[in-house]
């Protein structure tokens, strides 16, 4: 409501300078609005009698939500999309193209079961496509209570992961086979410093000379995988892979498994019976240390996910401001801010890949550390 009042107030103001000063406050105010609206995800309501401003905001929120969640088709631009295969395991395997859903508007019948898409997920339904909703939880969010089939579809995110894996395989295969003499050629000239950076700045100081080579393959893979996927997230196709918590969970799980499977005796000793600590304290500290084993990968997961989705939400909200203001005057500041934040996002993309790799190397270093009494 404040935005509307402020906008009316601004419309009476014809001095351009004052207007631009007020615009900053207006931007912040509108940003707050978009953020608070984004907090109630998963609810889907279109109450009748909305005024035009509220409808615009609802549309922006829907656009942001749509951008952030995974989907069954690869949207290239408005109305143009590439269908991806849907794989469902539900009394046998059903494989069909997501175009049969007609962008979530039709019901698909396979093997006597009916499926429909609701809020970006496939649910079992009846011939009429009924969607039942569970009771709202304490926050007031409503969830679909329909049964879900086991969904192994190649969604947009899975498609991008496969594409990125192939891209990385071919580019690094090409680089490694181009080393016939000492000098790198082609893409190797760009990638060699980065590989050396991961080795000399991340792996060696954190893991130690003795063991770092065992972990280099994973560290390099995870660094380039996260970095490239973060960068594709900045491309104009709405790809948000590292901003999906399932994917960051999988990456953190791999780090967790490698850390704990390759851990040496001293690592467990430091968790359950740490040397140099009074005996009663060891009993108190052991559960906390054990909890830390799980908190570390959990923090890895949350950090990458939250950073990337926050970046996407901010950028999308800024673009949405143009539609909130409905004024050409808003376009300039919004474009400038979007450009500045996009450049910042490029930095964050590299920084998050670096931090994920760095902390992973730190955990590996803790796992393989060997020392005498101290």
């Amino acid at each position, binding site marked *: 409501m404040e935005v509307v009042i402020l906008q009316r107030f601004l419309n009476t103001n014809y001095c351009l300078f004052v207007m631009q000063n007020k615009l900053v406050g207006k931007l912040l105010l509108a940003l707050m609005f978009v953020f608070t609206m984004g907090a109630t995800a998963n609810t889907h309501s279109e109450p009748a009698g909305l005024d035009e401003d509220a409808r615009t905001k609802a549309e922006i929120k829907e656009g942001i939500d749509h951008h952030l969640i995974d989907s069954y088709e690869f949207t290239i631009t408005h109305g143009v999309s590439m269908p991806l295969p849907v794989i469902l395991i539900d009394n046998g395997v059903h494989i069909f193209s997501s175009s049969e859903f007609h962008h979530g508007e039709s019901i698909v019948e396979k093997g006597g079961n009916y499926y429909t898409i609701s809020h970006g997920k496939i649910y079992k339904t009846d011939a009429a496509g009924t969607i039942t909703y569970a009771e709202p939880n304490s926050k007031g969010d409503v969830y679909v209570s329909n049964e879900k089939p086991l969904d192994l579809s190649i969604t947009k995110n899975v498609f991008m992961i496969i594409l990125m894996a192939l891209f990385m395989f071919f580019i690094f295969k090409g680089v490694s086979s181009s080393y016939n003499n000492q000098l790198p050629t082609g893409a190797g000239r760009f990638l060699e410093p980065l590989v050396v950076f991961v080795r000399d700045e991340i792996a060696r100081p954190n893991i130690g000379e003795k063991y770092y080579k065992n972990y280099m393959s994973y560290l390099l893979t995870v660094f380039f995988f996260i970095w490239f996927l973060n960068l594709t997230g900045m491309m104009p196709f709405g790809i948000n892979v590292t901003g999906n918590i399932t994917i960051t969970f999988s990456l953190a799980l791999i780090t967790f498994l490698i850390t704990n499977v390759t851990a040496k005796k001293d690592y467990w000793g430091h968790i359950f019976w740490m040397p140099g600590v009074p005996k009663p304290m060891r009993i108190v500290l052991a559960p906390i240390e054990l909890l830390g084993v799980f908190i570390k990968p959990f*923090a890895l997961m949350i*950090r990458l996910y939250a*950073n990337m989705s926050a970046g996407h939400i901010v950028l999308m909200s800024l673009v949405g401001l143009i539609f909130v203001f409905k004024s050409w005057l808003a376009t300039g500041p919004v474009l400038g801010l979007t450009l500045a934040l996009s450049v910042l996002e490029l930095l964050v993309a590299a920084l998050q890949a670096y931090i994920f790799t760095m902390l992973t190397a730190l955990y590996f270093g803790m796992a393989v550390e060997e020392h005498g009494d101290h």
Partner: protein
Amino acid sequence: MTIPTIVGAGLIVIGAGLGIGRIGGSAMEAIARQPEAAGKIQTAMLIAAALIEGIGFAALFAA
């Protein structure tokens, strides 16, 4: 989005901001004192900032 949640989220951001600000400020001082150790200080700074950020995000998710 209730008022306690909004206030809590604000407090989290203030706390995390203060923490990261202190780390950044101290790193600046340290680099000014020992420019030759800038690389090492930067790495340590980023790790510490990332850890605080992780806690901040975890708390924001809980809020």
